[in-house]
């Protein structure tokens, strides 16, 4: 009975008990902005994915960095396409931390990104793409709008 009660309590809770992370590091909550099945359902359920690893040497994610997400009990890779943190002049700062899910080859899981993405990503992702590695520029093709 107690277990049942606690379960109901947890499910009905409309807020997070962990503080907001000021930068993208492990355990930061993110927002999936593509129309992939898993991403959409995770956002609808109010269970945004958490970053569990940042693929750079600092451990803090910046625009265009690849991260590993824990999303609906699965591990997925994603690219950061919009950040809340202050940016240098001319680079937009967004109201949420946006990610687009990709697979190991760099192909996005969805077919559309429904928010604008910064122009500078075109350069950043091209720089990160290696000839024989993953091709991250595929993500740019599904963007609906640049800003």
């Amino acid at each position, binding site marked *: 009975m107690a277990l049942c009660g606690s379960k109901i309590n947890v499910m009905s809770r409309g807020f997070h008990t962990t503080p907001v992370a000021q930068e993208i590091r492990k355990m930061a909550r993110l927002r999936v902005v593509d129309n992939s099945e898993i991403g959409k359902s995770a956002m609808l359920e109010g269970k945004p994915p958490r970053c569990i690893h940042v693929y750079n040497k600092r451990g803090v994610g910046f625009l265009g960095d690849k991260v590993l997400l824990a999303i609906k009990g699965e591990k997925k890779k994603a690219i950061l396409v919009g950040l809340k943190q202050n940016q240098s*002049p*001319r680079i937009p700062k967004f109201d949420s931390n946006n990610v687009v899910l990709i697979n190991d080859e760099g192909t996005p899981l969805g077919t559309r990104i429904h928010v604008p993405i910064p122009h500078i990503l*075109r350069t950043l992702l091209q720089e990160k793409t290696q000839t024989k590695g993953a091709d991250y520029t595929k993500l740019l093709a599904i963007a609906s709008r640049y800003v």
Partner: protein
Amino acid sequence: MASVGRILSHDIRQNIQNFKSLFGKDCRWLSSQAIETQAKSSKENADDKRKVDDRENTAPLEFRFKYPEFLPDPNAAYRNSTRERLERMDMMARRAHIDIPTFYVGSILAVTLSDSHAVGKTNRFVGICIERKGCGLRASFRLRNAIDKQGMEVVYNMYDPTIQKVECLRLEKRLDDKLLYLRDCPIEYSTFPFDMEPELIDETAPVRINTLKVPLKPPPWLERWERQDLKGVQEFEVNEKRRRKAEKHKTPWEEFDLMKIYRQTIPMEDQKDIFAEVYSDLHKLEITRRKMARKRKFNRPDKPT
């Protein structure tokens, strides 16, 4: 903070005015204030503008609100008169190339700039100016807009050489010096269409003040808005603890702190010297801008069908 400090807020000025009326008008120890500010009618201001032919080189008083970036940082540690003069020269050189219109916090701007990352190598952003910062060549402004219900902000340096064009689509002021609270407002209050047409305005009329009061979303907020005296926000409730703390952190004596005002402002005499240096050039640019605007209007007659 510096930009707010450089130009006195209306309240403070009012206080000083009252203060001065007690001690008579001719008190030199309050020399950082403009006694005539409020007494001067708009007609007299117009006369001032005409005086440029007489080579009097007296910039109208509203220049400190129109061109706040020409005033240096009031902090003496950051002052260097030679650097400031050189920067002013550079700023005028840049202004000779692109037309930076007059705008205030709350105006809607469109910025076109060359962007090596963009497809067509140019990028245009439209948004409401929510903050103006910095002085001299480091002056910058922050535009905010929401596209596809995604709020975003971009900071532009005013004298950035990559900027191709700055348009003021709607010239107006809001009730506050900074509109950072728009981040915690419903998204429709920071949504502006990209295909907005520039509004035609009467340049002689005083700048319109938009008295819109925006509602705040429920907490959590990005800042403690209850501690800031916001005029452009609707009444909102905070919990008992936050209200008590806000009460505790109030500093009602600061508006009477003359030394604080003195430290945060550029004295009137210095302002006069600075604007005298750039006034004739700025005035010439203003005239050419007006001429160009008239030309553009004239060049678009409706074709009889």
